[in-house]
Each structure stands twice: as C-alpha cells, then as structure tokens.
C-alpha cells in the first residue's frame, strides 16, 4: 500500500507541476470562509469502492482509515474545522435554493442544518452542519461570491465543529459530488479565502508632513492574496480603501478626490486578479490645526467584507500638519 501511495503521490506532484503554468481562472469558486488559517480536515473520496480512497492529490489509499488532511472513505465533501458560529461565505455568485436551520447548533443526528446554493455554471454548493438559525439568507435570495451566508455549527452527524462543504454537478444525469480541488474549480489551487491582502509598499512609509490647507498624494500597494478578483467598476464587491478604527469614520483628512467622507479611494486598476498587486491612490488634505495625527485605513469589498487589517500591516498613515504661513496667523 505504501508503494501505491508513493506512486500516487508522484503522479499528484506531476499533476501539480503541470498545472503550475495554467492561467488563473478568475471569478471561479473560492473557499467558503474568511479565515486563511483554516485548513482542510478531509477532502472528497474520488474512489467509489469501499475501503479504497483516492484523495484530491490523486493518491490512492487502499484502506478504511482516516487520512488527515487528505480523505476518508466515502466522503462526499470537504471538511474544514472551525469554531462554532464562524462566518461561512458563498463560494461563488448564486441563488439560495434550499436551507434548513431548525436543529440545535450541536444537535447530533442523521440530519443537520444547511444552505444549498445554485450557480450559473449548473453546479450547486452545500454548506452543512450549520448553527441553529444560522442561515443569514433566504430561499430564492441571490448571493454574491464571498457574501456571508451562514454561521457554522456542529448539527447532524458531527464529531467536532466544522463545515462540510460540498460541490455537486450533474454527471450522467444524476447529481453527484465532485472534487473542486482536483478539478481545479477554485480560482486558485488549492483554494483561497475570498478576501485577503498583504501589504507590499507605499509612497511614504514614514510620516506625511502636510502644510495646513494643502493636499498631498499618497498611495499604498497590497497584494491580492485572496481568491476573488478586485474590481473598481461594480457596486457590490467593489474593492475600496476606507477609514478604520473605527470603520467608516468620517476623516478629517478627506481630500476632494475621495468618493465619500470615509472612502479614500477605490482600487486604482479596473481588475486585480489573485496574486497581482493593487494600488490605492488618494489625497490627504489638512484642515486640522498643526500637530500630529494618525489615519488608519482598511480594504473593503463593498457591502461584503472588510479585510483582515492585521494582514495589511495594520496600515495607517502618520501625519504631521505644519503651519501654513500664507494662511495661518504667525
């Protein structure tokens, strides 16, 4: 069995290397949660035989054991451990076609709470073991990729809080669970959370010194480390830079180019695919009296989700306003 597993692993590596040059599919599926620290417990078993398991990397296990991080026999979805009441995100744009939320959050039994979403490509995604009253959507509702649709739980046949995420497609006329990792249905392999960014650099990483009543231009660049393409030409989901600590705070340094009192700018580029760098350029206008200030900003996928600020390097701009002798009293 070890030898078979090794051969399977070698094949998996070959598949992986072969896919390295594959163009990124944009706006495909993403992981159905926001926390990038969550990793796979068990994936889909792609071998229909009992006690033969073929995992997402195409490794074959000729036994009935659980193989953590890989697969267990007969598994139809992907299990992700997470604390109770963690936010669950829609993996792609779609329409909610069914849900149940009446079982207790940790009520053990044959059935559990779920949300079922239908997508434009004909596939469906299932979000299972949800909390009691954990659905944040209604049947018939349109949802966007990355939208918070439910809270996690441990209802149904569940031995520890986790999300069972399942993708289904019609195969030979029947709804069948498929493996999104192996089929590379995620925008990025082996899958990323929808919204994530990491700090790259900015025009001035020190203190911006602004003469009172004047404006300076500042820019910052973040790497799109999530699974969704950043866009600036849509409404819901538009990626923008907003004030932070607290969120949506009206800024005293709003310049004339700001879209609103708390939105410094949308992402500069029309489209920033996963892995690419997005730049945010905005003005800082000083009306405040001379002194030291600090403005914090975070990235928002509009009406969907604020990004993890700590992963943006806790982005903030120290500002010193100095006297403008042309207008200020000496």
């Amino acid at each position, binding site marked *: 069995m070890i030898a078979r597993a090794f051969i399977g692993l070698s094949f998996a590596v070959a598949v992986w290397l072969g896919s390295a040059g594959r163009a990124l599919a944009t706006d495909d599926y993403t992981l159905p949660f926001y926390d990038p620290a969550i990793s796979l*417990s068990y994936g889909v078993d792609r071998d229909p035989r009992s006690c033969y398991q073929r995992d997402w990397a195409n490794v074959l296990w000729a036994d009935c054991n659980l193989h953590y991080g890989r697969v*267990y026999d007969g*598994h139809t979805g992907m299990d992700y451990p997470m604390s109770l009441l963690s936010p669950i995100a829609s993996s792609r744009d779609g329409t909610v076609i069914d849900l149940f939320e009446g079982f207790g959050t940790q009520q053990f039994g044959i059935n559990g709470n779920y949300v079922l979403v239908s997508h434009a490509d004909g596939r469906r995604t299932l979000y299972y073991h949800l909390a009691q009253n954990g659905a944040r959507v209604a049947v018939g509702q349109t949802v966007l990729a990355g939208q918070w649709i439910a809270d996690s739980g441990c209802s149904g046949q569940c031995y520890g809080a*986790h999300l069972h995420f399942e993708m289904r497609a019609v195969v030979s006329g029947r709804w069948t669970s498929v493996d999104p990792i192996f089929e590379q249905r995620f925008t990025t392999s082996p899958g990323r959370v929808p919204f994530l960014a990491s700090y790259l650099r900015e025009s001035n990483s020190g203190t911006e010194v602004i003469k009172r009543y004047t404006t300076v231009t500042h820019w910052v660049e973040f790497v799109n480390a999530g699974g969704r393409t950043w866009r600036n030409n849509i409404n819901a989901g538009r990626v923008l830079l907003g004030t932070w600590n607290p969120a949506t705070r009206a800024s005293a340094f709003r310049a004339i180019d700001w879209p609103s009192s708390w939105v410094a700018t949308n992402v500069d580029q029309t489209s920033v695919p996963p892995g690419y760098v997005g730049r945010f350029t905005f003005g800082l206008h000083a009306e405040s009296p001379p002194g030291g200030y600090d403005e914090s900003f975070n990235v928002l996928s509009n009406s969907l989700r604020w990004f993890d600020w700590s992963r943006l390097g806790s982005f903030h701009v120290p500002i010193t306003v100095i006297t403008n002798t042309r207008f200020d009293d000496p």
Partner: protein
Amino acid sequence: MSWIGRGAALLLLALAAFGCDLPSEAGRSSGAAPSPITTHALEVGPTPSELASTLPPGFPVMPNADPSRLPNDASVVARWTVPGVGSAAYDFYAEELPKAGFTIVGTYPSERAALIRFRDPRGRIWQLLAELVGDRTQVTVQTDRP
C-alpha cells in the same frame, strides 16, 4: 477531571489479553471522583519497559470512561468509551490536552470521526480518535500515522 495513570493502558491491555470487559457499572464514576481506571492503575504498577508502549504520562481521561477491548492493531495503545455522542469528546480533548501539557498539532473533525494529533512533552506525536460506537463515543489513542 479524572486522569489516567501510566498503568491505565496497561490495564486495558491486560483486559484485552484476557478477553474480559469490566462490568459497565464498575467502570463508571461520577465526574468529580477519581476514575476507576486510575484506581486500577495504582494497583497494577507498570514497569518502565511496559510504559513505553502505553499512554503518554499525564494523559487526561474523560469521566465515566469504560475500557474497551483493544483491536489487533499494534498502533492502538488504549481505547475506551464514554456516554454520549457528538462533539463532547472532541471538545473535551481540544480543551484538556493543552492543560495537561500536551501540544495539539492538528484537529480534524468530520462526519465519521474526530481526530486530534498531539505531541507529548517528550516530543512524540500521537493521535486521538473519537467516533460513534453504538450509543456511546469510543475514544482511541494510537501512534501517529498519515
């Protein structure tokens, strides 16, 4: 909280070897009282060489644990059942193992069972498996494997 001593798994092994199970009532205790497993463990007194193949020292056992017969699998060092089903065993060990000085390496809950990989203070990695058997949760401690 009850604690299993070094000899507890030895007792389980002995029970398996002799093909007998503890009467269910004899193997239960209240949550606050020391587990009967601990009592037996004190009586048995394992040798150092025997300890090497048993539970890591200081390993916590849930209240009301009943020892189970060991399977014919050298990687399994101890097995018992506790009342109840669902996530109680997983939740217990996710909380108690770190308190007892063990480091959780990974948690892998699912619909079939819950697996926790943990490292003992000497650096050895073990697996704890919680799964449904009848109307109880069976807990198995085994050596690490992929």
